[in-house]
Every structure is written in structure tokens, then in C-alpha cells.
């Protein structure tokens, strides 16, 4: 297990065990955070253009645009680029580079078409099959699990993910322990 995965699980355990119900995403800290950046592939950094294209294509297939932003519109590839460039150490970077290379190969069609060259529906078909294999245990790809977890986290911590896809109240003002779901049907972002 990579260090950051281990750490994430520790965060979850402490959230659950301590009922610190605000949680992981409840906050932030940085002055130079990537808020407002929503471009998919332009951010320069550790990942090269073809890696960024694969990241964007896979992330957007996991979380597509619907009536709300998809992963790309929410800036997930930029977040990942910044994570690898500014946060990740050499080991992390290499793990991601190797993982992306292998994932790109695994997702290349039998006819030799790269994942990024497929149409959105073809991408979904291909990734869906691959994802099912990973989660069924028939395909061994720990990187893909980490990648997916990171995409999901980056999406729901993004402004569109938190405030449009999910529900976010920066200052609720009060706590009510039991309300009808119909009054607040969406998952709270924090």
C-alpha cells in the first residue's frame, strides 16, 4: 500500500471512530489552491501532455459531465498534476508514471486504438470492463484503485463537485440530528 493510501485510510478511521463528522473535506488551508482553475490539460508540470490526456480521459469516464460538471470541468486533472508536481516525491511520481503507462497499455483496444482516441461511449465500455475486472480481483492493478480514489476525492473536494453535484453549507448555523431525506436529498460534501 502506498503511503498516501495508508494515510487516507487512517484519516477515515479517525473520522469514523471519533465521529468527527465534519471530516476530511471540511476544510482547507492553502492560499495558493487551484480553485477556479477548470482547464483539463493545460497545466504544466510533472505529467507530460500525453499523460495528462490519459488522466483527463479516464477521470472524465469515471465521473462524466451530466447536468453537473464532470471530472475535467471540475479541474481534477489539474489537481492531479499539482499533486504530482508540488506534493509528490520522486517515488510517488514514478509510481504514477509507471501506473499510467501500464493503464494506457491495458486500456488500448485489441485493434490498437489508444484509450484517448476512443469516443466517450467506447471509453465507458472499455473502462467499465477494466474497472469490473479490478474490483472483481481478476485484474491486478493497485495503481488503478489509487488513481480512481484520487480522482473521486479531487472531484468531491472541488467547488463544482462539492457545491453543485453534492450539497455544501459553509456555515450551517445549526445542527439538526434527524430530518427527512426529502428535505436534504443530496450527500453532504462535508
Amino acid at each position, binding site marked *: 500500500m502506498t503511503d498516501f493510501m495508508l494515510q487516507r485510510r*487512517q484519516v477515515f478511521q479517525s473520522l469514523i471512530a*471519533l465521529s468527527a463528522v465534519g471530516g476530511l473535506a471540511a476544510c482547507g488551508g492553502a492560499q495558493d489552491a487551484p480553485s477556479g482553475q477548470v482547464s483539463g490539460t493545460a497545466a504544466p508540470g510533472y505529467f507530460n501532455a500525453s499523460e495528462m490526456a490519459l488522466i483527463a480521459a479516464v477521470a472524465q469516464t469515471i465521473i462524466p459531465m451530466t447536468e453537473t460538471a464532470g471530472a475535467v470541468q471540475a479541474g481534477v486533472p489539474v489537481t492531479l498534476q499539482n499533486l504530482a508536481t508540488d506534493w509528490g516525491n520522486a517515488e510517488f511520481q514514478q509510481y504514477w508514471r509507471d501506473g499510467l503507462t501500464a493503464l494506457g497499455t491495458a486500456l488500448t483496444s485489441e485493434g490498437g486504438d489508444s484509450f484517448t482516441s476512443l469516443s466517450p461511449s467506447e471509453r465507458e465500455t472499455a473502462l467499465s470492463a477494466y474497472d469490473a475486472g479490478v474490483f472483481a480481483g481478476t485484474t491486478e492493478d493497485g495503481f488503478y484503485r489509487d488513481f480512481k480514489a484520487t480522482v473521486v476525492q479531487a472531484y468531491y473536494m472541488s467547488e463544482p463537485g462539492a457545491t453543485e453535484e453534492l450539497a455544501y453549507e459553509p456555515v450551517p448555523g445549526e445542527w439538526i440530528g434527524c430530518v427527512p431525506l426529502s428535505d436534504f436529498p443530496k450527500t453532504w460534501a462535508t
Partner: protein
Amino acid sequence: MSGGWVAKEMSEQGFKVAVIERGRKVTVEKDYTDFIDPWDAEHLNRKTDQDREEYPVQSKVYAFQSYTKQFWVKDKEHPYENAEGTDFRWLRGYHEGGRSIMWGRQSYRMSEIDFEANARDGHGVDWPVRYDDIKPWYDYVERFAGISGSMEGLDILPDGVFQPPHDLTCAELDFKANVEESFPGRRVIPGRVANLTEPTQEQMDLGRGRCQARNHCFQGCSFGAYFSSNSATLPAARRTGNMTLISDTAVHKVIVDETTGRATGVETVDIASGETKVITARVVFLNAGTIPTSMIMLNSANAAAPNGLANSSGMLGKNMMDHHSGARGSAILPGNLDKHTFGRRPNGFYIPRFRNHTEEAEGFVRGFGYQGGAMRERWWTSMGKEGVGADFKAAGRNPGPWRIGMIAFGEVLPNEQNHIRLHPNKTDKWGFPVPVLDVRWGDNERNMVRQAIRDTRAMLEAAGGIDIETDDPETAEPAPPGIGIHEMGTARMGRDPASSVLNAWNQSWDIPNLFITDGSFMTSGGCQNPSLTYMAFSARAANHAAELMKEGAL
């Protein structure tokens, strides 16, 4: 936490107070980070390699985040050592307000049962006080601090002066009903927490407001809605005009006049310049935090007190306690899928101690209480779920099932073997000897954790929980000492100067104008979170000292 109370009480009594703080001044504007949104979190709020390098111990605490690290010490600057074979995790922050900024805010009274415990089973020494002695002071500090909670009428966990409690969630109400039906001696109640749910005029006059249910407490609260020294006691002291806060100044020694046997003041070191100064006083209170208070007193040894100041009993630095944790459990509570919550509760439920009280126990004395909560699962479960595309996304939008999590905190017995000493030759960069902590848990703690796990499982099963997760009760160990962040007992109160450091008024037996009201004084620890007890004893001791000063005795 406790020092702010002393400052408030003494300055309100008309005495000039110098609060000596080794850390920096804290301001809401510069230090609090409670208006940060999720998307502002740098790098998905992951700790950096540099964090782990600079904060190897602190970075593991649950409240250490990319935006809260300003409240935790850099371990590299503030070294300590563990005796061979021990693993104490010393978690702390050096700044105005200390841990009162980062504390968990759970606020429980100790009961008569706790104050009698040592006398009854023979561990440690008898408390020199009983519940009735401290009850009015609990009332007093609760009224000022603002504690939310419910009246329950339990002898093991006395009621207090409460603001309205935080509701239990729908799933917690079902859990409560199931547990209380299956186990008549157990109760599931709203946590009692130092967050204002209905602020008083006195609190509003200090600039404090109602809790906004953000659960950003560890980041500081711009609303002043939870009790901290910064939001409550220091402003109260400051408005008297009698309090001066001297920051960035470490106390290295208490100075004693060997002819009178009285403390005359303290020797301090300027953190920035290293300059040494003496600050004189009629009365000295030590509220440095349990470990630093012992460090200062051990470092204040003189010809008359070669083993440390006020240590004629030999008990200084000994009997270190914490609350042991390690019994954790979680489960899905089926049902209530048409229900939800609103807001973010900075709190949860509490299950008061029942072992060796309403129910027997084998293999240990004393007991444990639980903190927990049951909330609907959120998006993080999607991180590990199968699926892609619009259906996967849609599934994440719906709240998941109710997941309950709970953790037991148990009483640790006073044991002279568990102690603090000063390293014979290593010092920090200000020349202060590095402390060596020698603390380990014994059979009583281990057996208690294992029973707490069995009891967790039984309650989760009784509540119809599925996907129950706990450690193995046959092999589980308590979490390392220090993790409870409740260091206590190293300058204990007692009835006999031969076996205790402080008398019933938190006053040194040896040096009558020296008082200690941080966690050092605790004769036993109970299983309750101790800060409220520190507050009550601090206020009581300060008012006693003020009386003695007015009488001319001090």
C-alpha cells in the same frame, strides 16, 4: 486551558497577573483557518514529506491537517525521548491558549465514585477532596465556559449547568433504544461539549457567539463559539486591566528563597534571543501542561530540594496517567434511509462507564466510557467502489447507509513506575534538559481494552449492526500512551505530604505560594475527558490563593 482560568480569577480578584507563555501570541486573523472551503485545501489536504520530517509525532494526530499545523509543535525543535521499550506520543502546541484551541471539547464531571476510587481499591493515594468540594466549582466553570448537554440523573456522570444538547441522529436514537433495552445498566446520551448552543449575556459580552455547526473547531473558531482560553478566559482577564501576557518566553525555573522557603518568581528565557530574565511574584501558578510543569520543577532543584522543587515526597514526575484508547468499533446500522442530518455537529454520543459500576468486570478495576457517532456515509466510500460513468456518479450523490463509529477511553491506574525524568546531558536549543518519558500500560489497561471491545461488539450486535468491525478482543492492545492527550498525575494532590506533592487546594506542601492546576494534580484520572476538571480545580485554587493573599498569609 487551566492557565487562562487562573489568570481570569486572579485578575478579577484585583491582583496583577503576568501570564508567561512560551509560544507566540495567537490572533484570529493570522492563526485561525476556519473559513477555508474544501477546494482550498492544498494538495487534497495530504501531509507533505516535509510535514512528516518536521512533525514526526504531531503529524499523526487526527487534528493535524495542512491548515492546522500552526497549532502543533515542530517535534524537531522540541525533542523528547522515550525510555527503552516505551512509546509515549507527546502531542502538544506551544502558543497562546495552548491545547484549548485544539482540544476535543468533551466536558464531563468526575463523580463521587471517581474521587473515592483510589481509597476503595488501593491504587495511588486518596484524593483529598470529594465531589461536594468541587461541585460548586464545576457549576461555576460550566456557567462561564458554556457546556451543552442533557440532564440524565446519573451518579457515575453528574449533571451540570448545561446549554441545550446536540440532538442525537435518527440512527443514534435507534441505537440508544436498542442498547438501553438490551443492557439496562447502559445509557447512550448526547456528548457534553464546550460549544455554545445558547450563549449567555456574559458570553456574548466577551464577543462569543453561538456554535454555527461547522465542525471546524480544530482550526480555531472566529465565532468564539467553543471554549478556549483565547475566546473566553484570557479576554475576561484582559478586560480587568490587571493581566499582562508575556509571549515567546519560556519558564525554565521557579526561583525559591531558601531562607523563607517561598517562591520568589521564575527564571525565563526569551525564545527569540535566548536572553534570561527573572520575573518576580508573590504567588506562582504552574500551568505549563503536565509534562512541562514537571520538567520545570525537576529543573528547579536546589540545595534544599536536590530531587526537584516541592518534591519532598519523591512523587514529582511520577504516576503519569493518560486515558487509554484502542477499543474501536464500527458498523452499518440498517434502516432510516429516509432520514438525514443538517449541519455538522462538533460532537457525538457518549456512553458513560458501566463496568465495575452497573455491571461487574473481570480482570480489571475502574472502567471506560465511549464516544461515538452514527452518520450517513458520504462520498468517500465511492473512492473504493466499483463502477464508472453516470451511474457511478449518481450513486455518489445519494447518502449512504448510517455508519456508526465508537471508541472507548479507559481509566489508567496511577503507577509510580510511569514517570518523567530529565536527560542527564541532552538539552533543547534553549539549554533546557530534554525530558525522558518512561510510561507503559499494564494488565489492568490491557484487560480493560479487551473488555471494551467485547462490549462494543455486543452493543453493535444488539443494535442490529452489520459489517461490524473491531479489533480482536483476544489480542488487542491499548493504543500507546499519550494518544489520549490527557497527561495527568505527576504532581498529585493528596492528604499526606509524604506521598503527594499538592494539598487539597492544589498548593505545594513544601512551598506554600506555589500552586499547580494543570493535569499534574490529578490523583486519579477517571475515564472522563479531564479538561473540565482542570478548569474547576483551577478556579477553586485561584480563589483560595486570592483569599490567602488578602488575609496576608501569602
